[in-house]
């Protein structure tokens, strides 16, 4: 059982703060590191993997600093985001080379066990360059598992995988977590994280925005104020009706721009009440609805809301 501890960790590159004052503990089980692209997830994983010195604060594994501590890799397995490997050798030779680099007492047995764990025995003699994306991902997993580390770090492991490959990898990671390993993976897709991780850490603009299980994160995301742009045959009357029914916390009609009406802007804190009240109000007043567009449903805006709370 190993625990990664980050204590007030910041990392900046020149004027850019990539990771900002993060304190967290990652323990056994599967933890998801969720955040939009550019949130600082890779920087944080590189800090945890000992590739970067924190500009402030400390990163420790079971009390030992990870930065410039080569022996720490006996306890950490890293699955990098990049696919590049030594393409001209076979999967077997590559995993065996990784076992030898760890100076394991029986590298061949360790490589065989790791390849079996990721179910790649059938393709182990093929060159890495012939592998599909999913196969490469599994061989990368095997190299990270070959020395049986208690900590596994995975940087965006599901990127570019098809649904079947994704499901296989999720099963594998769930197994690793169930075995008592500390498994941390990053992703910018909430659905991936909530299917797999019992514990989620949300990172936005380098800051630790929220943490908890997926239900808590989901609730935070759905209970935030939602904004919609509504176009109808009578925006002004519809806006008044929605407000009168208490289904919106605010409505406004921005002035026309270049002759085009921007439509009715609605903000609501109760998503469910609004989606019920809007069609009812329109029907009762004989108004035709042309368009209802969520104005801020991008993942970035959801994350931004979490940060601003």
């Amino acid at each position: 059982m190993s625990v990664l501890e980050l204590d007030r960790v910041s990392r900046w590159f020149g004027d850019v703060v990539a990771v900002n004052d993060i304190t967290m503990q990652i323990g056994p089980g599967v933890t998801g590191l969720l955040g939009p692209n550019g949130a600082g997830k890779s920087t944080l994983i590189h800090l945890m993997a000992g590739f970067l010195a924190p500009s402030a604060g400390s990163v420790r594994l079971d009390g030992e600093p990870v930065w410039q501590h080569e022996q720490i890799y006996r306890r950490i397995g890293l699955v990098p985001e990049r696919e590049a490997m030594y393409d001209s050798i076979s999967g077997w030779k590559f995993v065996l080379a990784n076992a030898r680099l760890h100076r394991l007492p029986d590298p061949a047995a360790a490589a065989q066990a790791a390849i079996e764990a990721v179910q790649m025995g059938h393709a182990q003699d093929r060159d890495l360059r012939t592998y599909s994306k999913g196969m490469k991902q599994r061989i990368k997993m095997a190299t990270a598992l070959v020395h049986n580390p208690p900590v596994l770090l995975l940087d965006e492991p599901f990127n570019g995988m098809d649904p079947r490959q994704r499901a296989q990898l999720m099963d594998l990671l769930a197994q690793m977590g169930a075995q008592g390993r500390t498994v941390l993976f990053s992703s910018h897709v909430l659905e991936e994280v909530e299917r797999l991780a019992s514990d989620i850490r949300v990172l936005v603009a380098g800051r630790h925005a929220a943490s908890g299980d997926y239900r808590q994160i989901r609730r935070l995301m759905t209970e935030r104020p939602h904004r919609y742009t509504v176009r109808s045959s009578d925006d002004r009357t519809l806006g008044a009706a929605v407000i009168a029914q208490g289904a919106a916390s605010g409505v406004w009609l921005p002035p026309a721009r270049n002759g085009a009406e921007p439509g009715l802007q609605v903000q609501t804190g109760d998503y469910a009440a609004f989606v019920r009240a809007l069609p009812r109000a329109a029907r009762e007043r004989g108004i035709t609805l042309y368009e209802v567009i969520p104005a801020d449903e991008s993942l970035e805006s959801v994350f931004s809301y979490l940060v601003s709370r």
Partner: protein
Amino acid sequence: MNPTVALLTARTLLGRRRAAVLILLPAALLGAAIITRLTAGTDHDIGTLVLGAFALGTVVPLLGLIIGTGAIGPEIDDGSIVYLLTKPLNRTVIALTKYAVAAGTLLVFAVLPTFATGLILFGRSENLAAGYTVAALVAGLAYAALFLALAVASRNAVVVGLSYALIWESLIGAHVSGAQTLSVLQWARAVAGGIVGTDQISSAVSLTTGIIGLGVVIVGALWFAGHRLRSLRPISDS
């Protein structure tokens, strides 16, 4: 030395495309030697031009650049260096192992062809073949270390290294006497001259300067490469 690091480095360095590039220069050198011997006989001036300007002045630095940067640069560029960096390996051992592979490759593709060129041009009648081989060997050892360190320090190592080889060594080093004090080529010539006689191979610098210069470059570059690898962050897509 770590045999697994050596094996992976050799795989990268001697991949099909790169090996083809590595064969081109020595093949051109040997071709030039044969043509020179057939057309000019054992003419001393033309022969030393082929050995000094082409073998030592062009083939050795260019192959030093290709092999020195190639021993680690591609792994840093594509991110596969991460598989070495996530191991409980001393970073200096990684640098030294890669250097040993680069030096061995240079021996095969640059030093031995230089010796063969010397034999074709002069046979065993003079010490020139041996002298230029020694010069190619020590220059190759220095270039391999220098360009390996450059590849760890910069993603533009090939451009910077090529500029160094062409502008500093060939252009400035050939004409500005002060610059020759800091020229790997002149250091190597001084060492070779010290072994086979300065009447055979001359240099703008003394033997002592040559030995110190080569020693400082090789030790300094390898120390720097190992040190820099300790804080190298592998690239990622995001």
